[in-house]
């Protein structure tokens, strides 16, 4: 986190300074959707887990009880 609404994000190991001017309440450790140097929204880990579960569920590609994320 820096002054003037900026923050440094880690994009697969590449560190990049982005603007948080469009989002509220972002904390260190949060995941954000980044586009043209701005965070557009925060990523909701609980919803991400639900979608991953849906892949497994609808896809039928994983046996029951298998972890959905590697």
């Amino acid at each position, binding site marked *: 986190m820096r002054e003037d609404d900026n923050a440094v994000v880690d*994009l*697969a190991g590449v560190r990049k300074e982005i*603007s948080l*001017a*469009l*989002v*509220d309440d972002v904390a260190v450790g949060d*995941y954000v*959707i980044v*586009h*043209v*140097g*701005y965070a*557009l*929204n*925060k*990523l*909701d*880990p609980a*919803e*991400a887990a*639900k*979608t*991953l579960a*849906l*892949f*497994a569920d*609808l*896809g*039928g*590609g*994983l046996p029951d009880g298998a972890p*959905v*994320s*590697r």
Partner: protein
Amino acid sequence: MKYIDEFRDGEVARGLAAAIRAEADPDRRYHFMEFCGGHTHAISRYGVADLLPANVRMIHGPGCPVCVLPIGRVDQAIRLALDEGVTLCTYGDCLRVPASDGLSLLKAKARLGGTSGDIRMVYSSADAVAHARKHPEKQVVFFAIGFETTTPPTAVAIKQAQALGLANFSVLCCHVLTPSAIASILESPEVRRYGTVPLDGFIGPAHVSTIIGSRPYEFFAEEYRKPVVIAGFEPLDVMLAIRLLIRQVNEGRAEVENEFSRAVSRAGNVKAQHLVAEVFELRRAFEWRGLNLVPYSALRLRKEFADFDAERRFHLDYRSVPDHKACECGAILRGVKQPQDCKIFGTVCTPENPVGSCMVSSEGACAAHYTYGRYKDFA
């Protein structure tokens, strides 16, 4: 990378593909449009279309920002640099968009020579403001293009320039709106001229929807009876969305479903929406490449921000310029033709030497087909 790799798992993709095959009714044909260029790119890059049964077809929509930028707007940007001597800041994607007289911003840059004009690539709107701050002796114009995703960053830049009292910064605003484009595809008379597109549903854009939310699509679901599933940009997201669309069609439903709930809510990013509403207002009409004039489909700066409006500052007029005769971008952007239907696809028109805008960015339908070799499978 977390939240990316899990959404690209090949094993799960095969499972989803099997589920799609099982779900799709063999006696039916399904035509779904992925509105957004990001999805077009993902579908081509990961070969999603190859995993689908023959009766499920994906149609590319007009959601690639540089593809819908008309020649007349690129001409305006070029004139600013060549004739007005401004420093034009642009996203890298715009540099090679074909304009009039065989020019593009990139080719215009080579022509600048010793003139005072300049054409610079920026990564973000903030870079353009920073450049204006550093060079008070130069007029800096940000060529602002794109859908609802790039509009809020432009609004932030304008507010920042205002707060700093920058007298040498302005914006050539070409921001366009997703819902208007979808409406135009569903009801414009041109679609009738090209023949109707059988469309059974839409994959709603990922980034755009993080800003506008899922609510704007409810109108299309209700009014046109078309299912919409908003999806993330990863291949598994797209496949799950296809499966959800098939299910809606089979069950006779037309609803808005949100596969990208990890980043999209019904209301969207309200803070960003307020900023956009404060700085911009609707244009009565705007020319889109391939879609002609679309009513209330784009934004311009409000009077309160007139000082930062490059069209006013430089008294720019707009001249519409027809596309290259052979280019089928117009039909492709509406989903009635495919890239390989264009006579010069891959021969005269290539990503190195694009004739039409769909060949410019990796999100364009022609470039995506060309780059990932999918055009062979579709022929």
